[in-house]
């Protein structure tokens, strides 16, 4: 339905304000110096307030969808796409996540980026990111969503290579964008296919057509798989996950905002948004689930051995995203979004905390050089602990409810293997998250004396966001997700995921039992981590020696980067080089130059017939004449 005037203004301003912030900051930020943050942060704050208003609107109008086609974007032939926005409950949830976390990260960055050369640049980029992300979630068509989608990719690129003189950073930024492009390749084709099939790219139209069965099942599978390819890229699923760990080259607030809380969720959001399409294709759903669960366990396995504090969290993010896809694939749509919701907060929190740790350690990111920080930076410690517990899935933290719901769904739907793997993931999560906690905050500090001397708690501008974030990480589940599968959130999202059926959750019985199992496994994981890294600290090393291949594989990220360097990248470059140096230079240009040279060569060879002797010339005349007579007499004679 058409929204009210206020809503139009809000929806227009939500993305526009950060855009304004971006432009103004880019133009004048340098002059503002260390005050460069004021304007962009203000813009984002207003935007966040407005997005809360958007959420509130959705809250009030749960059964309605606000649609506003601002103007025609592209109209060529029958191809028409408006520049249109829509708000429904799903968008509302996303608005809340993006707006709130975005704002908090902005505040946090004031402290974190303080004194950096590119201070204003950083805020400009962040604002641009907010713009793109808002467009992404507010879009009412695939194409506009794609605009936001690529926009966040651009910002991700800019922010990852923020410290561009570090080669690894610029490399990582480039990698992130290109890998995402591979996914976009699928997304683009999916859009074409959707348009060919339905004649529109607007969600309402597409979904209507899908519900009417206008899309042939085989085509539907293709569409879904291609869309999912896009999601794989953006949400860092196997095999396109390789960019996310490298993306940690960016400043930590970026990791928190973009690579944990918002952008990487875009894939999940898009698949969830395409729910009416996906439910029509079992194949696609299965693929989504399988990719999700594989990615999840795969990332968890790698996370165990990583030493960089941010890399651990990065892999855990991949793992979590995998779980979200498992939920979507298993048909537990709300659970997926719920986990997204929760994950946004606790993973954002984790990253910001790790940022605080790094800040405290003077830039050090290697956990082997940390330890014993619990006392020195208590706020960070406690908030991070909340995040960790939430993530591992300890009752009653937010993560617990969401994760449990996903696992329960797989079990109930009969995907027992998936469920079993999910449990393993829970166990591993417990181990690696608390390995991080124990290595960082407990034991002795292993860094240089000089570094130790400077360890200090972060300023309030950083810690306050931590505290604020830890509240939802702690209590969100209780608020919106209890009772499981029929909590408030489920009712809220019902209009979007309209024909979901679920049985009421039973505390005592199957539901409760599953819950218990996963909780126990989580705790066991924590315990193992405690045992390995607090008690028997030599055991990890021994395990590594016992099964070196497993350890090395994990440490080296299962050699994915090396494989990529050879197969797609190396092969492409080799082929391209061959094309250039051989096909282009030798064959095509060779032919061109060859023909040119050939003429010259013939000319040179013919020159000697011009001997300069007059009787030779007379001979040519006479001989030519006789030859003509002979030839023609012969031709016409026969």
């Amino acid at each position, binding site marked *: 339905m058409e929204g009210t005037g206020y809503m139009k203004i809000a929806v227009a301003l939500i993305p526009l304000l950060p855009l304004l912030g971006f432009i103004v900051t880019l133009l004048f930020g340098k002059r503002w110096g260390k005050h460069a943050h004021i304007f962009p942060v203000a813009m984002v704050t207003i935007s966040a307030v407005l997005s809360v208003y958007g959420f509130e609107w959705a809250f009030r109008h749960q059964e309605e969808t606000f649609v506003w086609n601002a103007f025609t974007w592209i109209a*060529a032939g029958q191809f028409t796409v408006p520049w249109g926005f829509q708000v429904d409950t799903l968008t509302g949830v996303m608005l809340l996540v993006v707006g709130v976390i975005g704002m908090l990260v902005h505040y946090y960055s004031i402290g974190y980026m303080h004194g950096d050369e590119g201070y204003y640049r950083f805020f400009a980029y962040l604002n641009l990111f907010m713009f793109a992300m808002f467009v992404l979630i507010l879009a009412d068509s695939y194409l506009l969503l794609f605009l936001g989608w690529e926009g966040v990719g651009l910002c991700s690129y800019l922010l990852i290579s923020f410290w561009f003189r570090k080669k690894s950073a610029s490399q990582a930024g480039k990698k992130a964008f290109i890998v995402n492009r591979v996914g*976009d390749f699928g997304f683009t*084709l999916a859009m074409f296919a959707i348009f060919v099939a339905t004649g529109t790219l607007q969600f309402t139209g597409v979904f209507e057509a899908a519900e009417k069965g206008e899309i*042939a099942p085989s085509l539907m599978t293709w569409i879904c798989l291609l869309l999912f390819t896009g999601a794989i890229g953006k949400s860092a699923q196997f095999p396109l996950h390789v960019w996310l760990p490298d993306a940690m080259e960016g400043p930590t607030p970026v990791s928190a905002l973009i690579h944990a809380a918002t952008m990487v969720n875009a894939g999940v959001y898009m698949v969830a948004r395409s729910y009416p399409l996906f439910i029509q294709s079992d194949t696609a759903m299965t693929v989504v689930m399988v990719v999700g669960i594989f990615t999840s366990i795969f990332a968890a396995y790698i996370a165990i051995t990583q030493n960089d504090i941010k890399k651990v969290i990065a892999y855990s993010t991949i793992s979590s995203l995998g779980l979200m896809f498992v939920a979507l694939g298993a048909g537990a749509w709300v659970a997926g979004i719920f986990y997204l919701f929760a994950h946004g907060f606790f993973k954002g929190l984790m990253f910001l905390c790790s940022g605080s740790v790094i800040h405290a350690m003077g830039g050090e990111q290697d956990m082997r050089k940390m330890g014993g920080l619990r006392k020195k930076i208590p706020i960070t410690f406690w908030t991070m602990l909340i995040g960790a517990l939430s993530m591992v899935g300890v009752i009653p933290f937010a993560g617990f409810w969401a994760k449990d719901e996903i696992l329960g769904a797989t079990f109930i739907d009969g995907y027992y293997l998936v469920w079993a793997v999910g449990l393993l993931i829970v166990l591993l999560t417990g181990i690696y998250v608390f390995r991080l906690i124990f290595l960082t905050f407990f034991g002795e500090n292993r860094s240089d004396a000089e570094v130790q001397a400077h360890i200090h708690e972060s300023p309030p501008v950083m810690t306050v966001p931590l505290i604020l974030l830890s509240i939802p990480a702690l209590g969100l589940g209780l608020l919106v997700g209890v009772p499981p599968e029929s909590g408030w959130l489920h009712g809220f999202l019902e209009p979007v995921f309209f024909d979901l059926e679920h049985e009421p959750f039973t505390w005592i019985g199957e539901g409760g039992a599953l819950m218990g199992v996963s909780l126990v496994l989580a705790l066991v994981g924590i315990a193992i981590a405690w045992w390995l890294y607090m008690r028997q600290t030599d055991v990890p090393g021994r395990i590594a020696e016992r099964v070196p291949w497993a350890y090395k594989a994990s440490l080296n990220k299962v050699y994915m980067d090396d494989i990529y360097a050879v197969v797609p990248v190396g092969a*492409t470059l080799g082929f391209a080089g061959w094309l250039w140096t051989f096909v282009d230079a030798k064959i095509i240009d060779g032919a*061109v130059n060859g023909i040119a040279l050939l003429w010259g060569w013939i000319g040179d060879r013919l020159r000697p017939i011009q001997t300069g002797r007059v009787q030779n010339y007379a001979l040519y005349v006479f001989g030519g004449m006789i030859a003509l007579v002979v030839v023609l007499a012969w031709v016409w004679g026969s």
Partner: protein
Amino acid sequence: MSWSDQIGFPLLSVITFLPLAGVVLILLVGRGKPVVYKVISLIVTLAAFALSAWMLFAFKTKLPGMQFAENISWIKPLNIRYGMGVDGIAALLVFLTTLLGVIVIIASWNYVKDRELGFFVSLLLLQVGMVGVFCATDLFLFYVFWEAMLIPMYFIIGVWGGPRRIYAAIKFFLFTLIGSLLMLLAIIAVVYYVKDSSGALTFDIQALSKVVYSYHLQFWAFLAFFVAFAIKVPMFPVHTWLPDAHVEAPTAGSVILAGVLLKMGGYGMLRFCLPFFPDAAVTFVPWVVGLSVVAIVYGALVSLMQKDLKKLVAYSSVSHMGFVTAGIFAGIALVGNAAGIEGAILVMLSHGFLTGALFLMVGFIYERTHTRLIADMGSLAKPMPIAAGFLLFFAFGSLGLPGLSGFVGEFLSLFGVFEYSRWMAAVAALGVILAAAYLLWMFQRTMFNDRGDDEVKPSFALKDLGLREIVSLLPLVVFVIWMGVYPQTFLEFLHVPVQVILHRVTPSLNDTSAGIGALAQLVDSVRGLF
């Protein structure tokens, strides 16, 4: 018909020949006053730009046919007329040309330090030829402009170019000449076919595009025209003149070459290949689209390996122009697929802005570093952040970031290809991935990365872009964003002319596939393949 019968003011002629007035003025001024030439050139190109902008405003997008038409007799015995006029496509391209004309003058303000008189005269003459090509409504007038343009370009590359300029200039010239000579034969064949069948000798493009030619003639004449335009575009495998010409040409030459000259190929296909020879065009669709797709991927792959900035951008042009030809021809493959064709035209415009801008950037960088080798650069974003920002902007525009101009056109043209053949579209879409790869890799190696020797290398004392350079880039930035955010402004000009073309092609489709019914079945079967 006299001038005044039409619109009272021969707008298009004035736009076209204003630079000629500049040439006369410069010649009157005489040798040795470079500043005067620059000012004169700037004034006349600005005036031409202003007039063409006014033309766009006054253009009625809903009307079919040529607007601002002028038509007077030129060569009576052959009934060749001086016919000028623009439809939506031509109007946009004229605008693009005049815009780049101004920018190029600004950009080469300090670039040329030798024989300035000749340089600016050449530039202005070139603009006359280019605008004329887009405005001509007489086939012959078109051809005259088309060929006449070669000479100033030959001089620009040959006199003010790089070390291998002679090779590049002659290669450029000969490639184009061969194509256009074949086209000349085809023009003669077409015109005299009409004369023999209807008794009237005419070179009027509108009239000629309404005739039904025999298939035999269509086939060969299409090929001749097509080769001429394909060389100009340039399509794989006749593209090799382009990198050489681009690399050796001075910045202004590269900008014009990439920004306008390449567009003439696409424009020619739209104006001649499709309406004149619809049956043959339909026959050739698979080949042309196939070659275009090859060009897209090939150009992108080869760009990936380039060590020279200019060459990289040059090969990227091959890739991008592949979208143009693919979109145009895929657009006529199925009934009424205007999206592909309109997309192709948008790609042409956007490529004009973006690649023009990229060449400007390369030129600016070269003026500072005196090298174009990527390996010799690095971390340039530090001393020249504004330049880095602009380069990044244009690079992202070029790789098709939604919201910037490159995206809309490429998306639509790819969509056209998709409707024709999903596999070709899939392969072509690889080009989009590769575009990101080569552009970002280039950007990383030039602007990013630390070379770790700040003090040793003098490049860190480089000056950032000055006001003049920024001014020359800003209009492009504006149009790139405008076209990305609200391409309707441009698309509106295209609906009617594209419909005219499609209207002309549609009967051929019916003929070749036995009616709409069969075609519909064909469409269905394409969809059914999924």
